[in-house]
């Protein structure tokens, strides 16, 4: 039985959307069920590697209903299968459960999503900014992040030689 069939059986009541594009098998899951489904895929199916966590800001995307999509790419190192799991979160407080307890690779990947999109992961042990400085405000990969004008870097204190 494929992992997708197992999911259909186990989460019969949940609102799951299965699709395929080229060789990507994709499942859109509700955010409330996300952790449960990922835990099922890891513990009872054989998806032992989390290759990728990333997010997309659908603000300007034609026909999109939700603001952010968060994407998890799971890999099975035994069978070589891949699954792309996607879930949606919305403003004002985008929040998802952290999957760090399942896969340690989620540590930095979730931190990057937080840093770039401002999506928080509850239960993450160390959710700090990673690529931008700690003092940074704003989330650069959001579509409403300004591309022109005086930004955060102009607000940084300038140390002169006399002060340092």
């Amino acid at each position: 039985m494929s992992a997708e069939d197992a999911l259909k059986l186990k989460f019969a009541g949940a609102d799951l959307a299965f699709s395929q594009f080229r060789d990507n098998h994709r499942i859109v899951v509700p955010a409330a069920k996300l952790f449960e489904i990922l835990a099922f895929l890891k513990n009872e199916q054989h998806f032992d590697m989390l290759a990728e966590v990333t997010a997309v800001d659908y603000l300007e995307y034609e026909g999109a209903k939700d603001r952010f999509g968060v994407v998890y790419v799971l890999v099975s190192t035994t069978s070589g299968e891949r699954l792309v799991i996607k879930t949606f979160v919305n403003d004002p407080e985008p929040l998802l459960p952290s999957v760090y307890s399942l896969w340690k690779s989620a540590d930095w990947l979730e931190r990057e999503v937080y840093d770039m999109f401002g999506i928080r992961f509850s239960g993450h042990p160390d959710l700090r900014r990673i690529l931008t400085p700690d003092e940074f405000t704003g989330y650069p990969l959001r579509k409403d992040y300004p591309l022109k004008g005086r930004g955060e870097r102009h607000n940084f204190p300038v140390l002169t030689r006399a002060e340092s």
Partner: protein
Amino acid sequence: MPFEVSDLAELDAPDKEYLWTLNFGPQHPATHTTLRLVLTLDGETVVNAVPHIGYLHSGFEKLGEHLDFNQYVTIVDRMNYISPLHNEISWHHAVEKLLGIELTPRCKYLRTILAELMRIQDHLLNTGTCALDLGGFTAFLYFFQQRELIYDIVETASGQRFHTSYTRVGGVAFDVNNAWVDKVRSFVKGFAAVHAEVHRLLTRNRIFIERVKGIGYLSAEDCINMGVTGPLARASGVLRDLRKDEPYLAYPDLDFKVVAAKDGDCYARYLVRMQEMVESIKIIEQCIENIPEGPVNVDAGGKAVIPAKPSVYRSIEGLIQHFEVMMPNRGFPTPHEEIYAATESPNGELGYYIVSDGTPRAYRARTRPPSYIHFAVFPQIIKNHQLSDVVAVLGSLNIIAAELDR
């Protein structure tokens, strides 16, 4: 392991006053690029390490949303600049998968040869500088001379030594000629001798072995759980290679082995990389004698492809097609879809997640950089090692900061 507040409290306790903190980087010869580590030391033993990254963050992924699929190739070049052409191949692999373009046989073979040359180039630098950091200068020089030959080959094909921007949607910028084929042949011929020489210099060199054997151990379970791929995972016994598992380009036709080791330490990683170069040479040998004839680019009838220059200069259809692809307000239609596509880069799984909104610009162009995933492992594997081992482990992880920060 993530840095946890409880760790810090423990290390700050009054009876731990003898611990001291060392700032390693951002400018340090052994980091090779710009990254910073804050090490807590007990004498010479590393008790805790906290990496700070982002010094080279330059918003590449944001740029990817504003450049079209052909233009962005100049940016992906600059991510892993140790093997720039492989990034281009990976990027266009993902784009072509999104658009559903099947490459011509000649292009597949050509890209395979270049990808393997890049793998050799990456491993040459990595093993060379790893030895250099540990005091072995000779191997570094021998290997850098071979890298020079690869630059020459790449320059003959694309006109650029380093940041080549050579691939295009549906093909490459220029076809290669017989002089190029001869250059690759002579490189393949000469490489074995240099490789054997470095084997003799390092593989059984006691000074080198004592610095790397048993250092930076990573178990197979940890590799899988922490998302580690590529030569690092294979050195720990994870038999995973996308060239075999999800074959792309010409790899299904070729005969090569997946190199793996069991020990999972820096020495095993060195051995895996050394042997992978031999396998890459085998692949190039098979490809270079069997490059199919025919066009290198997909027929320009498919709207996304830049037409050949003669047809642009001599026919109105070619000129129109060229304008359609090149002009910023024209462009070609793309599917309203999202795709994740990965290739086996020299460093591990290099994936791209592309969201397309129907225009020739990606709505989101996410890179899954192997260096980023691998550096997250560093604090765990350096614990309880000596300060001098930091250099050996950093060298064996092959962290490229431009790819790390993007």
